[in-house]
């Protein structure tokens, strides 16, 4: 069975359908996210379960994993980010092409989790902007899917001009990203 997403708001008549670019592009982006799994530890295994037959992330149009940062839209950070890993994560984020979103999966990525230690980065939001946080240690696959759905909402409703705004540039500047 093929399910097709509902059309966005717009005007339709005989032989035409008119809507804004924003809606049409948002719809397309939202349902074909290419995630880049940045899996470092336990949450990565739960992500594998999410990709597996039982939970099947493909239902949400995100089954095409892109292991190259340059072709992906969604950075999924899953697992502890140690200080040694920090520059690499930042580099991966910078390499991704706009528009890009970040999903922080698990307590470790979101806040350092139980590892409040000398070697662990206390939350990836110290180095890159994060759109959605998924709590849990590790989160259940349902939670990861819920996080993806939240990201889809953001993607679908994002204004086309957001990435060009001064506000967005300022936001990146606070993370020292040009």
């Amino acid at each position: 069975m093929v399910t097709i997403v509902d059309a966005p708001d717009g005007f339709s008549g005989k032989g035409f359908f008119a809507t804004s670019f924003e809606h049409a592009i948002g719809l397309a982006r939202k349902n074909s996210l290419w995630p880049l799994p940045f899996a470092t530890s336990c949450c990565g295994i739960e992500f594998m379960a999410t990709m597996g037959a039982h939970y099947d992330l493909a239902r949400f149009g995100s089954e095409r994993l892109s292991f190259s940062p340059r072709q992906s839209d969604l950075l999924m950070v899953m697992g502890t980010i140690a200080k040694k890993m920090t520059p690499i994560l930042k580099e991966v984020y910078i390499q991704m092409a706009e528009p890009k979103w970040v999903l922080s999966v698990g307590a470790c990525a979101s806040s350092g989790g139980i590892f409040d230690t000398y070697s662990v980065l206390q939350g990836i939001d110290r180095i890159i902007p994060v759109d959605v946080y998924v709590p849990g240690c590790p989160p259940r696959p349902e939670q990861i899917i819920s996080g993806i759905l939240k990201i889809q909402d953001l993607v679908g409703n994002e204004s086309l001009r957001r990435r060009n705004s001064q506000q967005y540039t300022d936001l990146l500047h606070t993370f020292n990203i040009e």
Partner: protein
Amino acid sequence: MNKKEEYLDSLKGDLVSGEEHREYNILNLGPTHPATHGVFQNIMTMDGEFIVHTEQTIGYIHRAFEKLAERRPFYQITPITDRLNYCSSPINNMGWHMTVEKLLGIKIPKRVDYLRVIIMELSRIADHNICNSVVGVDSGALTGFVYLFQQREKIYEIFEEICGARLTSNMGRIGGFERNFSDEAWRKIKVFIEGYPNVLKEFERLLKRNRIFMDRTINVGSISAEQALNYGLTGPNLRAAGVDYDVRVMNPYSSYEDFEFTIPVGSSGDTYDRFMVRQEEMWQSLSIIRQAIDKLEAMPDKNTFFADAPEYYLPPKELVYSSMEALIYHFKIVMGETDIPVGEVYHCVEGGNGELGFYLVSDGGRTPYRLHFRRPCFIYYQAFPEMVEGSMLSDAVLAMSSMNVIAGELDA
């Protein structure tokens, strides 16, 4: 002569004559690379497609387990052990509990031992499931992965029924389990051991005699028994090289001496042998689980799930609210008022990847003075250059996934 030997032989000639000038490329594999299944970096010096030298860098998810453990009471260390080898967390939990029980001198009833055996063998299946299905994926066979991951979900459901968590289980307590296995848990275990053999057989049929798979894995990433011992390999990787060392047999714990099982042993220590050893171990685990269920059913006692050691076993919550004695012990344990003996103990269990050891130094305080984990991954990943130097890049990827290097355990 296999590809690796051929290549090394060709190098030898050059080195002797010293005439031909070779140019090497440097290839950086990792730390985040889809083929490495974890975060470790390999800087490889390549001669065309052959690996001349590889330099490993690890520590990309160093989380300071050993330091963290020095600041936590014994019962709070269980969640840390979860995150060592997260593919088979319950084995780590049980290993840690047994270490503390050894230190405290708690005698564990047979029924608890058998319950633990069931859990540990289920975890072993879950662990080998991931490793073997990923070996399949890396050699280009995605189907097996989907089959086996479906079965992993079933094991997770059993764990959920027993402790409430899927992956990082934090299962059991010092002295036993936190609750008895429910009827639903027993039903799920039985359904699993009924249904799993068919799936495993099907998975085996996909790969075992598959020409492509055999060509990709036989004589790839092999290691000799002497080298394997010198590098400190344990678990399936050592057994694939032909050494029949298994902690369950050599130093039985948790009443493993009561069970009949064989240790599968390979001969050449290559990727195919590692795959087959894990495959056979899953069959053995199934048989152990069946034996444990039979033994438990033959036991008149159906209710014991913890040892009689009230001063160390955290009492059930409902008793804490209703019984004075339980409240006192609960308070004592949580506030660290129990007497902990001074001493040192080493205890090891056969984890999914090999000998998982806990070296615990206690100074009588509520936290360990020092806790060192013997992490099998950390020790055997050293042998990776030995296995792949001289072979091709695509073989290195397979060799790595068949070693089952788990980043959490590797980096502590």
